[in-house]
């Protein structure tokens, strides 16, 4: 095996030094009846050449976004990842190190963590950030657990139908075990029903969880949601899209108490759903209830500025069953990627990426809903995603037609919303060109009955 050092001779010398006769003897403490008396039934070993061929064969039976044109979104996006992000994250000093328990030999990671926390605060307008959670879904659940602890209310948590369905499912799973009631406010018009929200938020409610832009890509009335939550003494938890903050107001500017996000957009490849980056930022007064690791600035014994893990009494390795969360391993490498990504973009680059997404999404929405077959499902303003309704009620047919042209048209919503089974969620990132958008329009259009605008675009197909 290529990764082992010990030769038979090494093994013999070491066994002798230990004072045993065989490798088997080292396992004598495992009662014989419990020992496996046969080799594991897993496939035989592969050398690097064979393994490479095998993985290439498996990969060849997948269609990556690099081969097709992708309009898939719903929480994972085909944003561009600059090469500098891959370069930094592929340095062994970052990816083969671990949690900085020994600060003296981990200042690189600790300083990068401190910078990440600062960048997230700059991005969100919030006071404090932790050093990452697993992903958007579990970050939602952690934000709610934190709200329960901060408010000392365990009666009710309120969310909205326009929050990512998988975030809500995650939340439901976490709350089932704790016996907390989860109330979901309707979003049948594509955004939160504010009147219903005001009715269900009560003085037992720990928090209101919204997403902005929401799962349908639409903008929520965040000021009003914040007011309803705060008037009842509940926290306002918002899931945001990091890229959107190039044009939209920051969570800290519209009254969020805890801001969370799926950070995949910030330089992490889609890799079939994970590992991603759970972002969490909060108001300063809640910092001692935050989950996860946090880096802090201090000085060493010679007075030199440096960074350490801090506020560790919140964490499971100190506080055990009383910890603020059970999280240990986090997503440090993806926090690093997000930092490099945000540094590479800077304020101007982030605004440009956001504006490109915005303009292209609106162009695509205009072109697609110009087709006779499609109409906008909701009227609300959107950022980089939008929902179209198929008048022929055949979303699968649309997806198949596009796929035949090498296009991933979007995410069918019937999976989570039976009432939207005739709807498709379409995401447009800065990578999509006008030509690709026009190809999508042509693929979904019925040329015989198309409107003038799509007739024009059909010529690109």
């Amino acid at each position, binding site marked *: 095996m290529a990764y082992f050092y010990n030769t038979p001779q090494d093994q013999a010398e070491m066994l002798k030094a230990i004072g045993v006769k065989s490798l088997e003897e080292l396992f004598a403490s495992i009662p014989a009846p419990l020992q496996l008396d046969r080799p594991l039934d897993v496939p035989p070993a592969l050398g690097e050449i064979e393994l490479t061929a095998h993985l290439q064969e498996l990969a060849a039976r997948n269609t990556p976004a690099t081969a097709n044109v992708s309009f898939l979104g719903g929480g994972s996006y085909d944003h561009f990842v600059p090469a500098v992000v891959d370069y930094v994250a592929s340095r062994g000093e970052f990816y083969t190190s671990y949690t900085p328990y020994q600060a003296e030999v981990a200042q690189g990671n600790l300083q990068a963590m401190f910078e990440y926390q600062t960048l997230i605060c700059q991005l969100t307008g919030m006071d404090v950030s932790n050093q990452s959670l697993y992903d958007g879904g579990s970050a939602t659940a952690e934000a709610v657990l934190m709200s329960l602890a901060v408010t000392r209310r365990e009666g009710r948590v309120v969310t909205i139908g326009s929050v990512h369905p998988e975030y809500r499912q995650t939340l439901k799973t976490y709350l089932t075990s704790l016996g907390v009631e989860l109330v979901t406010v309707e979003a049948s018009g594509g955004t939160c029903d504010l009147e219903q929200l005001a009715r269900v938020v009560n003085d037992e409610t720990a928090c209101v969880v919204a997403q902005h832009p929401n799962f349908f890509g639409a903008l929520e009335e965040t000021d009003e949601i914040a007011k309803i939550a705060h008037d009842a003494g509940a926290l306002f938890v918002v899931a945001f899209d990091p890229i959107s903050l190039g044009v939209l107001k920051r969570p800290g500017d519209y009254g969020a108490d805890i801001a969370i996000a799926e950070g995949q957009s910030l330089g992490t490849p889609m890799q079939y759903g994970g590992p*991603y980056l759970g972002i969490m930022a909060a108001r300063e007064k809640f910092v001692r209830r935050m989950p996860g690791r946090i880096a802090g600035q201090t000085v060493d014994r010679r007075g030199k500025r440096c960074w350490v893990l801090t506020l560790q009494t919140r964490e499971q390795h100190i506080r055990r069953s009383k910890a603020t969360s*059970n999280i240990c391993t986090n997503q440090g490498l993806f926090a690093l990627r997000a930092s490099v990504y945000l540094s590479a973009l800077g304020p101007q680059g982030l605004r440009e990426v956001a504006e490109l997404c915005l303009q292209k999404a609106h162009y695509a929405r205009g072109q697609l809903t110009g087709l006779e077959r499609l109409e906008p499902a909701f009227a609300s303003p959107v950022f980089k995603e939008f929902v179209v309704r198929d008048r022929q009620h055949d979303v699968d047919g649309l997806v198949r037609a596009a796929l035949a042209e090498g296009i991933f048209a979007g995410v069918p919503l019937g999976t989570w919303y039976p009432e939207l089974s005739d709807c498709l969620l379409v995401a447009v990132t800065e990578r999509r060109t006008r030509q690709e958008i026009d190809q999508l329009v042509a693929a979904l259009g019925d040329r015989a009955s198309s409107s003038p605008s799509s007739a024009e675009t059909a010529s690109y197909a």
Partner: protein
Amino acid sequence: MRNTRATQLLFELSHPGRRGSRLPACDVPETSLDELIPERHRATAPTPLPEMPEPEIVRHYANLSTFNMCIDTNFYPLGSCTMKYNSKRNERLANLPGMVDLHPYQPESTIQGMLELLHQMQQMLAEISGLEAVSLQPAAGAQGELTALMCAAAYFRDLGETRTKVLVPDSAHGTNPASANFVGFDTLEIKSTPAGYVDMNDLRAKLDEQVAVFMITNPNTVGLFETNVREIADMVHELGGLIYCDGANMNAILGITRPGDFGADMMHFNPHKTFSGPHGGGGPGAGPIAVTGKLGPYLPSPVVAKDDTPEGPVYRLDFDREKSIGRVRSFFGNVGVLVRAYCYIRTHGPDGLRQVAENAVLNANYLLSRVQHILPVPQGDRCMHEFVASAAQLKSERGITAMDIAKRLLDYGMHAPTVYFPLTVKEALMVEPTETESKQTLDAFAETLFRITDESPELLHEAPHTTPISRPDEVTAAREPVLKWTAAEN
């Protein structure tokens, strides 16, 4: 070459007007922002991010990286974390476009290769664990624990039982009691014997029909195989309870024994430990769980299913599982980590996996035999993949603490062991060499320990001496937290 002056923060390097990226011009007809986004939603000022050109970013991070110890450069015997070599082929293969550029909601027909890999992963983890059903969804070991306990809670709800307690040995990882708490259980601690095993008398005293789960780490955190594990499992099962095995230490027993065979009903794997997923400076990990057949229906959804058709096998995501607890995260799982773990398992095969355990245990025992006369190991002269030495005697005789030793090791270019864990051993130094180290490295580590324990206590109290910083003031960091850079304070 280390550039020790490169400790300025990104924000201090920022310069107005510099930038590290150029975006393409907009190629669609533009609409004014006023028409697209109502003013109340629009940012009123640019985000205050740093402004840097690409070379500056590269130099900054390349220099920062040199302040980290890592497996690629140093021996890293951090107990319980299994810091083994991270294979470069796995990195390359996990980054094939056909593996990494896949969207989680692509049509299943366009990801048959990925689904086959994940299905095989389910099968292989079931075989390695000796259990029947697998979920690849949890994002880390701690989330695996939480998920399995949620499955247990759902199982008891279905039985109409309201069990309130989870038993956890006092030597367990902190994640165990924390996970139990977030599933709504009360945690009861079971004592360890002086020899380092679960105290059977304490277990008998605390075990009753209110116990839902006994969470056992096996091999345990002092590096011993719980010899009574089968008897413990029988006792718990007799009262209707379940056994959870914390799989953090699977590296010691791959192909030697299986949790399912020693009585576990549920377990998690740490692919970033056992199957060499890179630790990434803190993560990512993954936390797949394996359970017995009766608990399988409760696993999160989806799982990968295989249908045999005349045209060959077809893989799909199975969401149609009515007893499932639901989801514990968005999307399928930490697939990037699982792909690396798949490569690792396929590289080793059945014999290779057993050799991982053999060499890990051999290396740990060899190191133990070399150092125990200087650093006694209270729990005996044999171990599995790791051992916990104690500096208690050195402390009482010469004032040298486990922390002193840990810090001084850094001067000699070796990462410190895990210190002050488990809590059951005084002045604990938890050493896990792993199988991807040589006898020469182990000898050098042992000799370094001998040298350190001969050094003056004063020298050790101020160690490390050669690192960029030494003994940061953690008390002030926690009392007056500075958690981000601000222009005013710097």
